[in-house]
């Protein structure tokens, strides 16, 4: 039995290695049918000597169009390189990406969410970009340093950010006006925030069911609120060497208690079962007066017809804090055209591409000059975009470490019963899940 299994494993390992050597050639993709409204031609058919790159990312259908335009710009500047763009929804994206990587035929360039970066980098599937950066030392000059931190490793950069996200507070102006409450001031505190949320939680038709919540957010992933709260109360998420989970410290527990009280004492936040009825985002559904989220939500909120603006995260007992995260691009080590792929990455971080991204409105450009230009600040949807940039000053980096997905699932799954109202003992749950989370860390960061 052992021999057969061993033989099979070797066979499989051999097949993976063999396919990695033989593979790398872009799969035969028939020219994608161009949507009728696209003003620009997509990829030109490959001709003799033309390099064909494959780029994959997650996103919304709207982003597909803008990226095709960016690609078209790139192709006109580099006529011997053609890039095919594939956009998928989040969940499907990772499934497909990992399947391709497992079979040894990854796309040449693909998008990465910063927290997952080390899972890929430490496993040797990414191309080291440091040689290119050393040869072109000014590429990163104008990039916000806070967005680069996640991609720095001992051996250099293996990926670069293409846009960043900071979390700010969005508020529904109509709901504030209707309740006669002044808009939040930039130097408000957590207590102000809590009071405001309570004042905006209303049962309009007096039927015992709350119709409008003061504040709503998703609490499974840390990025939207609970990491910021912990930082603002003086706690930390994880130790710098990534071996200890720190969300159970006294300061952190104060933050958790704050959230818990908002949800179950003030009842200004909906529990997860109630929230699920309205989809994932109650602010967008018009059921919440405030939410904390990043710039990616702006186009959707505008399309939903909401009258909103933004304000920085409130000041906590230990100061002001928010989270900074980014979507980046990495190049697969198995690519056949590393130089061409690098050219594309370089183009994405250059002003023309960053300007198009700014106009798209989903995220903040990583290039300072573009972010502080009218292309971003005066974009179509009229809100105070500068808040997102200013928030960088007090932003903590969303943790990046090997095993992030599994670690986050221990915390998220573990806390979920609290937010669903099934468990009430916050401290007991924390005591239970933190050792489990540490176990996961031990596996990957011993």
């Amino acid at each position: 039995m052992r021999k057969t299994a061993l033989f099979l494993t070797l066979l499989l390992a051999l097949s993976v290695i063999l396919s990695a050597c033989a593979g790398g050639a872009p799969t035969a993709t028939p020219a994608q049918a161009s949507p009728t409204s696209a003003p620009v031609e997509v990829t030109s058919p490959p001709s003799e000597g033309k390099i064909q790159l494959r780029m994959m990312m997650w996103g919304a259908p709207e982003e597909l169009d803008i990226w095709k335009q960016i690609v078209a710009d790139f192709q006109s500047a580099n006529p011997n390189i053609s890039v095919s763009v594939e956009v998928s929804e989040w969940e499907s994206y990772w499934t497909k990406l990992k399947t391709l990587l497992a079979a040894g035929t990854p796309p040449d360039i693909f998008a990465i969410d910063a927290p997952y970066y080390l899972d890929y980098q430490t496993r040797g599937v990414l191309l080291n970009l440091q040689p290119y950066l050393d040869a072109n030392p000014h590429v990163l000059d104008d990039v916000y340093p806070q967005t680069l931190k996640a991609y720095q490793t001992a051996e250099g950069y293996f990926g670069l950010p293409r846009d960043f996200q900071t979390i700010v507070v969005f508020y529904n102006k109509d709901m504030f006006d209707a309740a006669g409450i002044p808009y939040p001031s930039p130097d408000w505190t957590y207590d102000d925030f809590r009071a405001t949320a309570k004042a905006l939680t209303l049962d309009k038709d007096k039927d015992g069911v709350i119709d409008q919540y003061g504040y709503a957010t998703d609490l499974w992933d840390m990025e939207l609120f609970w990491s910021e709260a912990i930082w603002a109360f003086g706690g930390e998420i994880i130790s710098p060497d990534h071996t200890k989970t720190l969300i159970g410290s006294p300061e952190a527990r104060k933050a958790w208690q704050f959230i818990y009280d908002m949800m179950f004492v003030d009842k200004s936040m909906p529990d997860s079962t109630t929230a699920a009825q309205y989809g994932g985002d109650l602010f967008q559904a018009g059921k919440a007066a405030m939410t904390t989220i990043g710039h990616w939500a702006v186009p959707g909120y505008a399309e939903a017809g909401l009258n909103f603006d933004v304000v920085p995260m409130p000041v906590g007992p230990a100061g002001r804090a928010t989270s900074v995260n980014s979507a980046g691009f990495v190049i697969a080590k198995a690519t056949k055209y590393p130089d061409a792929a690098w050219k594309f990455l370089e183009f994405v971080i250059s002003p023309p591409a960053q300007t198009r991204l700014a106009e798209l409105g989903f995220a903040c450009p990583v290039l300072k000059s573009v972010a502080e230009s009218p292309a971003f600040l005066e974009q179509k949807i009229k809100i105070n975009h500068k808040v997102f940039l200013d928030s960088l000053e007090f932003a903590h980096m969303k943790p990046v470490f090997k095993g992030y997905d599994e670690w986050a699932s221990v915390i998220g799954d573990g806390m979920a019963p609290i937010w669903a109202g099934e468990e009430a003992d916050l401290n007991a749950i924390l005591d239970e899940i933190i050792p489990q989370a540490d176990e996961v860390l031990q596996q990957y960061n011993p």
Partner: protein
Amino acid sequence: MEAGIKPLGREKVWLWILLAPTLFGLVFSAFGALLATLGLSFTEWDLFTSPKWVGFSNYITLFTDKRFLRALANTAQFAALYVPGVVIISLFVAVLMNRAIKGISLYRTMYYLPVVTSAVATALVWNMIYGKDTGVLNYILKQLGMQPVCWLCADRAMLSVVIVNIWGAIGEGMIIFLAGLTAIPKEYYEASEIDGAGRFQQFFRITLPLITPSIFFQTLISTINAFQAFDYIYMLTRRGQGDSSIPVVVFSIYRNAWHFNKYGVASAQAIELTLIVAALMAVYLWAEKKFVVYE
């Protein structure tokens, strides 16, 4: 079950030609994949680097992995509720449908409708039906003067999910049982009537024994489906990033393979699931010999 026709001489070729596609699929596709999964279950594979041999350690951790044990318990509980539910209800429906009354075809079509849909699409409607404050069910309950129920909250979620799965499978069972019921010769009923048997006696003495083949088929298929159920359960109970309030084993396999980069563990879980269902199949096959009546 009975002996069949023997192929004559050169006809043997045709036998193999007819069987060839299935044999090919069996050997190269199904068993190839099964063996690969088995092999991988003895390794640690993160999909990016080559698999590392770890022996039985994946299997050993299955016994201590709290999340997997919880998924297993959920799966078993789901099956225990779902299988009897769907078999009994669809049998009952089939018996009703077997009567010669006008418009029966229309009814049969309506009962089969839930089978012919996409679980992902229909789960969206069920979310709207089960909503605590916004759902149709609670609205009806309120109109009837009763208390609204939180259908998707922890204590009731399992039952709600079982109901949806049964709803989606009644039509199939109904057809299976109908085929079995109509195969029972009318003479048996006529003869028993002459002997003075009432309807209940007819059901238990004639009908039930003679549809045991259908009950066997339906129970077997439903059990397999129960242990691999995923779509409705996930769509109704999901929360956060790929989490569910009622994780089942298939869900755990999916997460380990695609989220946690633990393909070896996922393979071990898949093998364990297969073994459990295989054991149940063995029990069913033994029961078939004892209880199922073939003419």
